[in-house]
């Protein structure tokens, strides 16, 4: 573990990423304390530019809401959407990929057809249809994102499992009398974990982008202040009050960037090739 940490820290970008993300997480957690009032509250006249008033650091939006408060509460939503949808996607993709890779043959064929099917549908279009059908609410936004983002997980896990499956320690486990489930959960998945973790960090980033795209099209949960919502709402005034879309845009950019950097750092730190060398 210490080893891992040391390798991770060797990547300067990854450290910066971790720093940014920690900051975002802190803001998200502390949002209710820092901005106890609802981010929807209209506190001042609309379109106050940033830094023009002491207590409204980033100014106000089209209906006079505190942009800073929106940003803080939006951090929570974006992270929540990113994390939960990724977890759900993993919960779908990992079992499917693992079963496909482990049992191979017909099971693999069937599961992979199923995955392919979901990959053939343009994912963003599917998300739109899902949300039109089930009405936008946070839960369904998360579900929709998860549904369109699990196939790569399944493919990755399958590939990993396929290559792990023939490793001798798996055969040894079979001979030791372990059941399939035990072998998958105890021996295969832990070893497939590094690439899954890396992918997951990218998926969180993608989910945040997807949520913002959906919000932008008006398919977000209207009761929830998210960054995508803020951009979507501000796009109509992008010309005069460009900062209203710029600020949350930067927030998304930075967070996604941070997640990517972390992903890269994890990739380096978890890379078996590098790991083996410093054994």
């Amino acid at each position, binding site marked *: 573990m210490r080893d891992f940490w040391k390798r991770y820290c060797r990547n300067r970008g990854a450290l910066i990423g971790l720093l940014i993300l920690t900051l975002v997480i802190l803001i998200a957690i502390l949002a209710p304390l820092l901005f106890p009032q609802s981010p929807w509250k209209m506190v001042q006249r609309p379109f106050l530019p940033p830094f023009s008033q002491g207590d409204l650091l980033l100014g106000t939006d089209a209906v006079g809401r505190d942009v800073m408060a929106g940003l803080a509460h939006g951090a929570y939503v974006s992270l929540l959407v990113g994390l939960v949808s990724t977890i759900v996607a993993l919960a779908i993709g990992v079992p499917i990929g693992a079963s496909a890779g482990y049992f191979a043959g017909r099971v693999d064929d069937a599961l992979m057809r199923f995955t392919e099917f979901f990959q053939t549908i343009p994912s963003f279009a599917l998300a739109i249809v899902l949300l039109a059908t089930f009405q936008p609410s946070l839960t369904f936004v998360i579900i929709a994102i998860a549904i369109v983002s699990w196939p790569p997980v399944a493919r990755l896990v399958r590939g990993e499992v396929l290559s792990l499956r023939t*490793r*001798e*320690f798996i055969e040894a*486990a079979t*001979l*030791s009398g372990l059941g399939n489930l035990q072998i998958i959960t*105890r021996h295969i998945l832990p070893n497939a974990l590094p690439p899954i973790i890396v992918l997951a960090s990218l998926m969180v980033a993608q989910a945040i982008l997807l949520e913002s795209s959906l919000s932008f099209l008006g398919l977000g949960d209207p009761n929830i202040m998210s960054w995508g919502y803020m951009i979507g709402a501000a796009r109509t005034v992008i010309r005069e009050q460009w900062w209203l879309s710029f600020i949350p845009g930067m927030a998304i950019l930075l967070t996604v960037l941070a997640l990517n950097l972390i992903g890269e750092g994890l990739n380096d730190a978890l890379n078996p090739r590098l790991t083996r060398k410093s*054994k």
Partner: protein
Amino acid sequence: MSLLSIRDLTIALPEGADRDHAARDISFDLAPGEILCIVGESGSGKSMSANAVMGLLPEGVTPVSGRIDFDGRDILGLSEKEMLALRGSRISMIFQEPLSALNPLMRIGAQIEEVFEAHGALSGAERHEQALRLLTEVGIPDPQVTIRAYPFQLSGGQRQRVMIAMALALEPDILIADEPTTALDVTTQAQILELIENLRRKRNMAVIFITHDFGVVADIADRVIVMQTGEIVETGSADEVLLHPQHPYTNALIEAIPRLTGDHSGGRGDTGEPVLSVEGLCKTFSTGSGKFFGKRRVVDAVQDASFHLYKGETIGIVGESGSGKSTLGRCIVRLLAPSKGRVLLEGEDIAHMPGAELRERRRRIQMIFQDPFSSLNPRSRVSRILTEGPIAYGATPGDARKRAGELLELVGLDASAMSRFPHEFSGGQRQRIGIARALALDPAIVIADEAVSALDVSIQAQVLDLLADLKARLNLSMLFITHDLRVAARICDRIIVMQKGRIIETGPADKVLRDPDTDYTRSLLDAIPGQDYERALAGAG
């Protein structure tokens, strides 16, 4: 006059490597037409020293002092451009892994012609001519066809020949061969060695040959260098070093070579009930999933194999690569489902036994795997590796741990090993853990598939001793799969010889090794390198 002269060469390793220097204060000379062998255990710096001559050290690995004189100039001082002119034309190199050393997307011919192109030699048509001639010269069958083939269409031995053809294209002064035969089976190895020997003679080319196989050294070397942890510990003519080693390390290495001849415990009598009987076992693979141009290919990996294994007996299964040894072993433990035939384990047929029942029976028959790296889950502690089997079969965790401790002691490991991860052990220690795992379930039979092939000679010897010892103490029966006849000779009571999926010869080890019935077995025996040397050693000893 020496062609190449290395003086006090020290090669530094980047930070975080296992030691500071890949090689330290290396000095040696190479004369034209001479074959110089570099031997030593894995990681001793053989490859790095050779790569330094080519100017092909990996990133971060740099020569820090010393000089390499070739043709009157210090290679280390040459610019990249000047090095380009040398590489491939004056000094050539071939590598160990024949599969990955060729570009998978380029035709063989093109890859050879590239050498001429790189040095601006010959015209297009002539290059093709030359490539054909080279392929013929290295003994590729049907060069007209092969020249248009892709690497994956060739066997390992053929690929290695292509590599050699490439290295020889511009008739270099020096050929560096870094373990060129390690991945090949004995027969192919013998052919390649002969090829190198011939070429050397014909062209008066100097060869630096890196290997850890003393048999090979004995067969081809003029002079020998022995390396240990980056330093040259001994150097001299082949005879001096091999027969009268001065340094204790060299001594130890030579001691550890298993002998083909010598006393075998002798076949046990075919007494009592066999613990394992294999009857008419067949395994057919069909490959080519039909994904693209799906022609199905059917491989009869094992055909109609039958034999008995008695209590306390060790049977060696030998044969060239691809002859079906592993497949046979894996069918017996049911890691593969046999296509046909019976496998009677203590009287019961497990060949087609379904899940739960099979699981119950299978604990009686365990396996030791080839690769000590991939046969242990890198994320499991040793305690878990040793206990999860017994626990799965109903032992309490406490009992299982106790037993695991005993097993570790049995295979000669400290009890503190329990809480460590596999990567914290050396290859030999790992193989011991693998053995302990196989024994944890109290099997009657152990199948060892190339259990010592991946190990250095010295460690190989230790593990073989351990196995022999355990077998005697626990009265185990063992199937010992190997392609190394020396190893088989050392440990087996009886030997089964396989060729193309069939058992073609079975008999007591002595008989099979001294006086085989089939030509095939004889050819296998003949291909073993270093037999004269062994005799000489025996004579000397």
